Structures are given as structure tokens and as C-alpha cells.
């Protein structure tokens, strides 16, 4: 109610303020022409109606529009503030990351170097182990070959010794020695107590 009253008073005030120059103008015209005509009154009334329309219809809408614009702008400002805060946070994060980038690069480089060292050590160890194995195999083969050659040599020497011995024995064997050997054998047989006691 108070608002409506205030609004009416404000309208009347505005109308008075508006009409004062108009009345002055009309008086001036009247003085110039000698009277205040109907056409002038209609203009004034028309103007007043225009003011009322503007006040009661256009002004609230304009105000609402402006309030909405204000709220929207406020919300957008808030959103922009939030986005700016986020952007600032990201910027700070990027700055932080950028600051740690050198360290990260150094760490990656160090990791690569350490991996390389480990791989090198592993390859060297494997190569060493392989070489040791090969050396052991070669040594074993050499030993086997040596043993084989030694055995072959021994066999050859023994075969030669036996062939030589056999040749000598055959050369020395005659009817007499054969008879003597048979006699020794028979004597050995005759001296046995049991068959399984025989020894050549």
C-alpha cells in the first residue's frame, strides 16, 4: 500500500515537474495567442497517460529486466570468478609441474641410466656365465679327449706288448715246453681237493 502511494506521489511529482514547463509554455502561448486551447490539454493528458504507462507498465519490466541482468551479470561474475580461480589453480599446478619438470627429467634420465647399468651388468654376468660354461665344457672335452687318447695309446702299447710277448712265448714253445705245461696243469688238477679251488 505504501509502495503504491509512494509510486502515485512520485508520478504526480513527476507529472507536476513535467507539466510546470508545459503550463508555462502554454501560458506563454496563451499569452501569445491569448487563450489555453483544447488541443494543448489533450497533449498534456496524452503525455500524462504516456507517463503513467511508462511508470506502471514499462518501468517494472525495465526494472525486472535490469534486476535479471544484474543477477545474471552477478552470476556470471561469480562463475567467472570461479573459473578464474580454477584457472589460477591450474596455472599454479602447471607452474608447480614446470618447476618440478627439470627434476622429473633428471629422475627419468637417472632411471634410464640405472636401468642401462643394470642391463649392462646383467648382460655382462650372462656373458661371463656363458664363457665360464664354455670354458668348463671345453675343459671337459679336452679331458675326455685326453683320456680317450691316453686309453687308445695304452691299448696300443698293451696290444704291442702282448703281441710281442705272444710272439716270444710262441717262439719258446716247443713239444717239450708244451708237454711241461700240460704236466704242470695236470699236477695242479691232481693236487686239488675241490673243483672250485682251481687257479690258473
Amino acid at each position, binding site marked *: 500500500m505504501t509502495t503504491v502511494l509512494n509510486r502515485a506521489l512520485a508520478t504526480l511529482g513527476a507529472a507536476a515537474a513535467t507539466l510546470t514547463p508545459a503550463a508555462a509554455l502554454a501560458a506563454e502561448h496563451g499569452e501569445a495567442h491569448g487563450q489555453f486551447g483544447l488541443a494543448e490539454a489533450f497533449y498534456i493528458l496524452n503525455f500524462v497517460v504516456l507517463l503513467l504507462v511508462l511508470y506502471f507498465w514499462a518501468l517494472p519490466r525495465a526494472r525486472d529486466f535490469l534486476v535479471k541482468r544484474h543477477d545474471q551479470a552477478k552470476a556470471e561474475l561469480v562463475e567467472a570468478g570461479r573459473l578464474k580461480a580454477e584457472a589460477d589453480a591450474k596455472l599454479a599446478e602447471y607452474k608447480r609441474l614446470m618447476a618440478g619438470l627439470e627434476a622429473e627429467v633428471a629422475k627419468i634420465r637417472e632411471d634410464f641410466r640405472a636401468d642401462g647399468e643394470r642391463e649392462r651388468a646383467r648382460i655382462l654376468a650372462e656373458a661371463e656365465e656363458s664363457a665360464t660354461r664354455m670354458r668348463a665344457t671345453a675343459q671337459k672335452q679336452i679331458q675326455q679327449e685326453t683320456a680317450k687318447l691316453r686309453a687308445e695309446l*695304452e*691299448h696300443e702299447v*698293451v*696290444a704291442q*706288448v*702282448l703281441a710281442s*710277448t*705272444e710272439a716270444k*712265448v*710262441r717262439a719258446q*714253445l716247443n*713239444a717239450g*715246453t*708244451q*708237454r711241461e*705245461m*700240460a*704236466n*704242470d*696243469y*695236470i699236477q*695242479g*688238477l*691232481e693236487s*686239488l681237493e*675241490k*673243483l*672250485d679251488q*682251481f687257479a*690258473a
Partner: protein
Amino acid sequence: MSESPIARRYAKALVELCTETKNHAVIGKQLESFAQTWSSSEDLQALMKNPVVPLADKREVLTRIFSRFLFAPTTRNFLLVLLENERIAQVEEITQAFASQMDELSNRTRATVTSAVPLERSDLARIQNALQRLTGKTVVLDARVDPSLIGGVVTEIGNIVLDGSVKTQLQSLREHLLV
């Protein structure tokens, strides 16, 4: 040659038959003759083992061989039984089993004496006497000559080998040197 249970069974039957007729020696020799003929004649073996040849024809062939060797009825009948029972291929084994069982019955054993040069009769007799003393059985010697022995004598009796040869001594020397 090892004797199978079947060979021993047939040999035992023949031994029992011979005990009645008391002609072990004759039957043994005739069996040995047939076994030698069998082992030396691949044709005879092929014929007797051939399942396509009728039994009557095989009997006919055996009968002709019996006539030639003048085999005793016991020998003839025994060999014909072997033929009918399809055991004729084992005649050598059976002959050996028969000889072993006869030796056992007669308290007799066989020994093979091998020497590099022929032994004198007196030496063989001394060996025979020594073996008879050691075994407590009559020993039948089979003397053989094998020059590869170089010198000395080898006696085989049953599963025992009494080796006094130079060949074996050289072999022992070889093994000793190679150890």
C-alpha cells in the same frame, strides 16, 4: 644248448622206456645220429616244419631214414611221436636232455679237455682220474685241440672251466695292464 622243460619231459619219458628195455646206450647213439642228420640237413628241417606237407608224407620220409640207419623200434616210435606232437624240431635239445639224464642215472659226467697240441693218452687218463676223484662220478672225456690256446690246457666240466691256457693268461695280463 640249454634244455627246456619240454625237452626234459620227453627225455625223461624215453629214459623210463629204456629202463624197461635196458638199451639206453643204443637208443642214445641212434638219437644222436638222427640229431646230427637233422642239424646238417636244412632240407629235412624245412620239410618237417612245413605245415603244408601232410603228416603221412613226413612219416614216410622219417620211415625211410629209419630204414637206412637201422633204428631200433623204440627210437623209431619215439621220433614218430615227436613228429606227431610237432616237437621234431626240438630233437637236438631232447637228445642232449636224454644224454644228461642218462649220465645222471649212470653217475656219469662229461668233460671237454682242450689243449693247444694233442695230449698223450696218459695225460688224458691222469686228467680223467683227477676229475673222477674230484666229482665222485665216472667222467667221459672229450679231447679237443685248439691251437689258438697257444699253450696249456682248458677243461670244461658242467658249469666249471679249469683254464690253464697261455691265451687266457695273456688275456689276464692284458686286463691287468689296462686297469
